[in-house]
């Protein structure tokens, strides 16, 4: 169990800081670690693409932020993750209402962009081709983009499945 001492501000305008925390949380989930953290959620930020990550703890029994309540209700481990195989990456996403989505990324530029954005990346640093791919992955909610115009950061959302939750047959 890792405890984050101070509340984390998930700010729609601060793309870099928010993206860094999202990537950090994603990677702790990958290691199978429980994270106890508190959030201050910018109402302008759509947090729904993050519901597969460990949600923040409630501030108290009366806390009513509907986005956080939904996050806590939606979360369980193994909802959106990827696995590495020989020459391919497989993504399984159960967040959508239409049942599970599966993607097998076998070729660049999809494979390389997915991998590159595991580290938060400035959208403006991407080539035009890469940005087109990023738009496609954003549409599937496999990436998230946060930040003010001109300072938007993109981050890969699925966590790598390195430690399976128990019992694994439920995943």
């Amino acid at each position, binding site marked *: 169990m890792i405890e984050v001492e101070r509340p984390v501000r998930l700010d729609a305008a601060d793309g870099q800081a928010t993206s860094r925390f999202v990537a950090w949380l994603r990677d702790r989930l990958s290691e199978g670690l429980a994270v106890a953290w508190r959030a201050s959620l910018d109402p302008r930020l759509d947090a729904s693409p993050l519901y597969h990550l460990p949600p923040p703890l409630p501030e108290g029994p009366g806390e009513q932020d509907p986005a956080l309540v939904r996050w806590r209700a939606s979360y369980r481990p193994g909802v959106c993750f990827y696995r590495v*195989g020989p020459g391919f990456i497989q993504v399984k996403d159960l967040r959508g209402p239409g049942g*599970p989505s599966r993607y097998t990324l076998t070729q660049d530029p999809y494979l390389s962009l997915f991998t590159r954005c595991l580290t938060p990346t400035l959208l403006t640093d991407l080539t035009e081709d890469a940005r087109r791919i990023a738009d496609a992955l954003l549409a599937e909610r496999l990436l998230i983009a946060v930040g003010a115009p001109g300072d938007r950061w993109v981050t890969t959302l699925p966590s790598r499945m390195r430690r399976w939750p128990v019992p694994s047959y439920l995943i």
Partner: protein
Amino acid sequence: MRLILASMPWADLHSPSPAMGILGARTRAARPGTEVTEYHGAIRWAEYLLAATNGELTPEDYARIADDAPSGLGEWIFAGALNGRPEWRLKELRSGVVRQSDAEIDVAVRMRRLADGFVEQAVAELLATAPDVVGFTTTFQQNTSSLAVAGRLKQVRPSTRVVLGGANCEGPMGAALHRNHPFVDFVVRGEGELVFPRLLDRIAADQDAAGLEGVCWWRDERSIANPESPSPVPVEVIPVPDYDQWQRVIEASPVLSYGSPCLLIEASRGCWWGERHHCTFCGLNDAMIKFRSKPPDRLWAELSGLVRRHQILDVFFTDNILDLAYYDEVLPLVAASGWDLRIFFEVKSNMRPGQLERLAAAGVVELQPGIESLSSRVLKLMDKGVTATANLRLLRDSEALSITVTWNYLYGFPEERAEDYLQVIAQLPALVHLQPPRAVARVALERFSPFFERPELGFATRSPKPFYGLVYDLPEAELGDLAYYFDCEEAGITGDPERTLHEAVGRWQRAHPDSTLVVSENPGGSLLIADRRQGWPVRDHVLTGWHAAAYRALERGRSAKALTDRLTGDDGYAVDPGTVSAWLETAHRDGLTYDDDGTFVALATRGVPLRAYARPDAVEVR
């Protein structure tokens, strides 16, 4: 020659049939002129159910029936089609012969009304390519669907030759299946790699099967059962299974989205433990028990080749037991690949230090270690060759490695005593942080097990499970040869101890999601044991000095004397046996140890896995 291999309901929907994959590859190698195709009848049936009910009967309904082979419900669903009488034993299903709930029986009845239509469709699809031979593989509940389709197929096109094979055909079962179903031309009993291509040679030459080991065939109207081969098939003869056709079918099917495709790989056949000590309840055929395993380099080539070819990372090993050589020669290769595999393996629970870690590093995510019991005395009665201490060590150490342990608690063994269970039941509240058994069940009597073969072991009176009478229109004696599951008189515990065991395991299952007992090393050599188990006070135990050394020593499991010897010997503490015993008593009272007939084993885990059903409000911050 055109050959179709068929795998009918109730095969698993999301994994290929190794029988079809292996025999297809073997036939292509041995008879290059043979055109081999596959019919995935199980997937077709699941699709048929979805389409015929507008999506109401789903692959999840299918899986519930498929996964419960001893109920026989899947066999019953095709019994009307097999017997040519839709009403055959329809009403009797509700007479209490099977133990399923009314809701489950309703599903089965609904499926049964669709079975005739599906059989017609399957026959038309099989005959569309005008096959010379149709080979059905049958394991678990695949008998009646295969027989129903085979019977109808022979009515429509009598010249097609029908061959039946698979685990359900071993020994007297195969002979009974043959002699009672004249539309089955041949039954192959035992392993098919060598004899099946030879049988195809005979069919192609229009010759009979005289002399082909294990084959049942017809001489005029008499069923002849050739003796089975005494020597098992060497692994060199077993080819890499061909799963290409299966993958094309499942990827185009609406069934796909109801599960995850999984490769089946066979590293070995037989059981190296069972060769010497056949577990008394294990239904592995004696003829098949001889252990044979693929050389490590070949296994790695097969595993990595199939993963690359199919881009599937879930791998289920069909082995009865893991070859110990693989710990050093295969698992490190798998771990070094860096691939995120999810591997299932059956193992023996008495592992040496480090072996569990090697399994985890290689991507072994789920183990079936045959735990069966937490009483060493009862385990000895089973001839399992493991102790309760070994079982508890495995349950405990799997936690920190995020390994799912699948097991059932079995009881009902001749010569077991109520006190064997009362000792265990009294300690189950201390185990709620460990993975509970999925079920508690009276041991089943299965063909080929020592309990079946040797009535003097305690199960002298037996009869085929009653569902066989609801499936086959055959005399009792024939059912006795055809059946795999048997009813027998109850042995061992009954009444109160039995009920108490069920209740105690139920409490364990309910308490598990919210229970942890974790030990961590503190700076300065002390231990912190955080007790957050349901039913126990929230408590942090801090162990220092020889107490910490003692608890570490108990991770292996030790008697009070062995613990004292260890503390006063290697560890160099000056502590007398009485003091050690008193401390052990306290630790045991606090639920920190399990007492296996005087051997104490530490229960606290070195980590906690994420739990698949964890809710965030269950996370507690200190």
